[in-house]
């Protein structure tokens, strides 16, 4: 692997198996998954419910360790990271977007965005300025002082996306980011993530049921019963 390739490869899964439970309760959530995730692409992971999509995402985030196989995260075996290193990795190099947004209701929109930036080492003023710029780009600047319960679903997801993108992280992991949104709002969010991947040369991994997202993905991984059924190029790769 040359240096250029190394820089672009963010996550490598080699023969990863994840088993939950034992005996009759044993479930193979992932079964010998091998996959490489690179910067500059929007990778879509699709599959029916229970196919292991979310488990795959959590493994890529270093939230769970594989039963078998190796996961290399930013060039290092995930099991070699200490809890503190994983925390710093999440603060500086990874962003997350969830179906239920998971905004902190007691913080304003701007505070939700800037808090994550503070963990990444930005100063208060700098975080506030960058946060306002980002919210302005997403058309949310007038909502900066509002609290999440006062926002629509689409607005909440835009804030969640802003929070994930604010730190300029190399890898964004999104779990059903359009699941709670209508088609127009969903389109807006996936467009945002797709642009972020291509224009900023970042990597966005999206786990979803939503077939419409295929139009924006560079690659689509189809999962079934914890196994990769197929990997195909998406229509996003033609752009």
């Amino acid at each position, binding site marked *: 692997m040359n240096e250029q390739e190394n820089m672009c490869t963010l996550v490598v899964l080699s023969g990863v198996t994840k088993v939950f439970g034992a005996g009759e309760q044993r479930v193979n959530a992932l079964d010998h998954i091998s996959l490489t995730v690179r910067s500059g692409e929007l990778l879509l992971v699709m599959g029916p419910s229970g196919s292991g999509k*979310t488990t795959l*995402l*959590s493994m890529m*985030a270093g*939230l*769970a360790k594989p039963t078998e196989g190796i996961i290399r995260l930013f060039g290092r075996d995930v099991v070699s990271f200490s809890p*503190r290193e994983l*925390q*710093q*990795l*999440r*603060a*500086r190099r*990874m962003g*997350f977007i*969830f179906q239920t947004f*998971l*905004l*902190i*209701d*007691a*913080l304003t929109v701007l*505070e939700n965005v800037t*808090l*994550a930036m503070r*963990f*990444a080492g930005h100063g208060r003023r700098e975080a506030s300025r960058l946060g306002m710029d980002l919210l302005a780009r997403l058309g949310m600047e007038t909502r900066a002082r509002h609290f999440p319960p006062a926002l629509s679903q689409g607005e909440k997801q835009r804030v969640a996306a802003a*929070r994930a993108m604010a730190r300029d992280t190399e890898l964004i992991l999104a*779990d059903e980011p359009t699941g709670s949104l209508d088609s127009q709002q969903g389109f807006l969010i996936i467009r945002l993530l797709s642009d972020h991947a291509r224009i900023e040369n970042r990597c966005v991994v999206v786990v979803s049921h939503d077939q419409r997202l295929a139009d924006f993905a560079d690659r689509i991984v189809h999962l079934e019963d914890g196994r990769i059924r197929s990997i195909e190029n998406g229509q996003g790769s033609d752009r």
Partner: protein
Amino acid sequence: MEKYTWRILRGQPLRLALTVGGVALCLMLMFFLLAVYRGVAEGSVEYIRSCPADLWVLQHNSTNILRGSSMISTPQATALREFAGIAQVGSVLFVLSASGVRGRDGTLFLTGFEPETGLGGPPRLVAGVSVQRDDEIVLDSCYAAKYDIHVGDRIWIQDWKLKVVGVSSGTNAFVIQYAFVTLNFAQRLVGISELATCFIIRLRDGISAPVMARRIRMDVPGVDVYDWETFLTNNIAEMESGFLPLLYTVAAIGVVVLTIILSLLLGVNILERRRDFAVLKILGAPAAFQKRLVIAQALLITLAACAVALLAYFPMVWMVERLAPEVSTRSSILQIGTVVLVAGVMSLVAALMATRRLRRIYILEVCL
């Protein structure tokens, strides 16, 4: 972070009010206990502190007058008066006695003294005059207030009716109050003439108290002699040995209960906010940041409780002292500062106990 902490707490206003109220009540209890302690500590020995004695003479092995009986004979006082360098000798007899006024019974620490010398008599009079005759009595101001007795009223001391001629201050020992009668009356009350509890000695100018004390010990058999400072220290130590353990026990129980309650409340807050904490974890919040959030909640609650306690404490003390005049309290900045400091430490301990729950919040369980 402060804003976030405040908003978390403000989200449950009733719970916040109950918690702050509970902590404030506990702090008031601590303020009050310390103030009562100081009130008792100073009140119990105020009589001794105010007494213009250079030396106290008691029966051998008696060290104090609060919790010990000393019996000596008044003719020894006559012998002491012959010592060169002694200016005055006053005999004092302490007697615990039942009292009655307007059908209400009480107990008094009767102090029989010789009106001629005035030694051992009331330290300060707030009304009337001192005792001159055997049918007269001076009462402590708290006792007088409690039983609504004024100068000129009459009070039963066992089978004798005495006229109240004065009211004194600095004579409230919390559990009992001093009253002053003549030595003759006190001796008549116990039925033993020539009996005294102690002698109070005043020395002539330039006479060394330790030297005189040594001489008395050698020349007068069966007595111990203390200078003013030693005798005061003995009595304070005696009072503290009986009262301080109780105070410490109650205060310690208060601190422990409060720490546990605060810790439980913070734990509930963490569990209710487990989603937020999981989000913080997935955003890469350092463990120290999460702990600081809990500690900030604890400190905010304690700070608010301190403010409430301070605002409510002084009116409460005013009311207690009106309802129970014998309860004498003395508060100081140092005491209040100590309680606030203890409360701060307590809130830190409670917060650290509660933060153990943070470890049991798993990102996967909450977020994915």
